[in-house]
């Protein structure tokens, strides 16, 4: 036991363990995205609005954009979407992502443009931009569990919504455990690790066993609380002033479509 009572004269050798840092970063990103999503409702009064309205706006925008062949309608809808993004989202990552995807689409359409299909190519690029922005508005302003609950409006069975909700919950819980385990592995990686793959596969194996145990425990807890296989989800979406904004946008998009989009 004498080794424990004196300091080690230890100089570590070089070993590449950057994969740990990268994996830790990925899991912390997942966790913070889910936490940020949950905190969204408290951060902005507009975002406390009924997620159903945002979902209808998204679906109607995507459908009308894809139906329309008129550049004026597509352009005006895009402008409207950009103003909405600027009004309700603080950072401009939505616009950046939409520009990136639109640029890639433009590059892919270069041969078509060179063949003379300039207008069609522009319409497609604008449609991609509008669709990406619309989807991003929904995903970055609505917590995932609210998006899942909106599915009830579209007559998706409650048990399916319940499974989706729990999948999301388990992604969060297991990401948290994976994050902590990788941090522990990083802290204990004090020298040359010749069994990196073995360690990673052990972690994955442990995660699998943990997830099985957690789901079993959850099932027992549900049984104890009287679960009989039927799961009923009550959605409590109220109409507020913020909803009026989204309802107006939906109406405006439809007016645009019927006056200049067809």
């Amino acid at each position, binding site marked *: *036991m004498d*080794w424990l009572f004196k300091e*080690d004269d230890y100089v*570590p050798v070089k070993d590449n363990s950057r994969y740990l840092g990268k994996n830790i970063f990925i899991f912390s990103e997942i966790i913070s995205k889910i936490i940020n999503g949950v905190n969204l409702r408290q951060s902005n009064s507009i975002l406390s609005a009924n997620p159903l309205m945002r979902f209808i706006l998204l679906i109607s925008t995507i459908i009308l954009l894809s139906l329309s062949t008129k550049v004026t309608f597509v352009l005006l809808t895009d402008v409207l979407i950009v103003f909405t993004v600027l009004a309700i989202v603080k950072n401009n990552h939505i616009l950046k992502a939409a520009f990136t995807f639109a640029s890639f689409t433009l590059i892919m359409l270069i041969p078509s443009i060179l063949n003379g299909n300039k207008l069609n190519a522009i319409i497609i690029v604008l449609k991609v931009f509008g669709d990406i922005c619309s989807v991003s508005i929904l995903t970055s302003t609505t917590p995932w569990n609210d998006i899942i609950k909106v599915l009830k409006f579209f007559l998706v069975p409650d048990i399916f919504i319940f499974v989706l909700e729990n999948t999301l919950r388990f992604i969060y819980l297991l990401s948290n455990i994976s994050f902590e*385990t990788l941090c522990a592995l990083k802290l*204990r990686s*004090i*020298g040359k690790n010749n069994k990196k793959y073995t360690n990673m596969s*052990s972690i994955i194996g*442990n995660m699998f066993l943990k997830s099985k145990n957690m789901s079993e425990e959850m099932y027992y807890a549900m049984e104890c609380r009287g679960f009989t296989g039927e799961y009923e989800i009550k959605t409590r979406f109220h109409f507020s002033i913020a909803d009026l904004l989204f309802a107006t946008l939906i109406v405006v998009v439809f007016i645009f479509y019927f006056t200049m989009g067809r």
Partner: protein
Amino acid sequence: MIEINNITFEYNGLKAIDNISIKIEKGESIAIIGPNGSGKSTFLKILNALIFPSSGDYIFNGEKITPSSMNNQIFSKKFHKKIGFVFQNSDSQLFCSSVYDEIAFGPRQMGLSEIDVKRRCEDCLRLLNIEDLKDRVPFNLSGGEKKRVAIACVLSSNPEVIVLDEPMNGLDPRTKRFFRELLIKLNQSGKTVICATHDFEYVKDVFKRAIVFSKNHRIIRDDHYDKVINDSVFLFENNII
């Protein structure tokens, strides 16, 4: 040994630690006390360089701990060798296929001969009284056994500083008494012990110093452990008892 100068840690605009400064000398035994959400665990994570302060300096053995210094693999490994962290949730800390491999993980990385690795593992198994668990899978152990294995894993690397996050949580009284004796023994052998705890009943005579965090994420008292623990009015006012 450890110098914390005016560090603040913010996450999503919320302060988890607000402008704290501490000096910790080698061989000290310190209890980190505070209500839930006061920043104790965040502080321990900063000490282990798992996260980095938004502002202020963290100096360990005269060297500044920053994201860039920790990017240097040699420096990072040397740092982690010197400071061991026992997580609150032992489940997160154990990932090998047997208890023996778990304890041997650190010494093997240090390049010790298999004889030395075996000696260290057997000493740790004996010290933590878990010799019969040697070949068991860590995943199937009880909470107290997992905690013992987690501590053995940290000790086998022989760190100079041992940081523990709520080590007594969820343990039975006998295991708590065992850990109390162990912490005293480790501190007497020259290890610096830093421990976040709520379980004052079972840590009598373990700590010499107490650092108290307030719900405002600041240090409101840094004093002799006995003085702090006997000041029941102060502890009650700050939601500690």
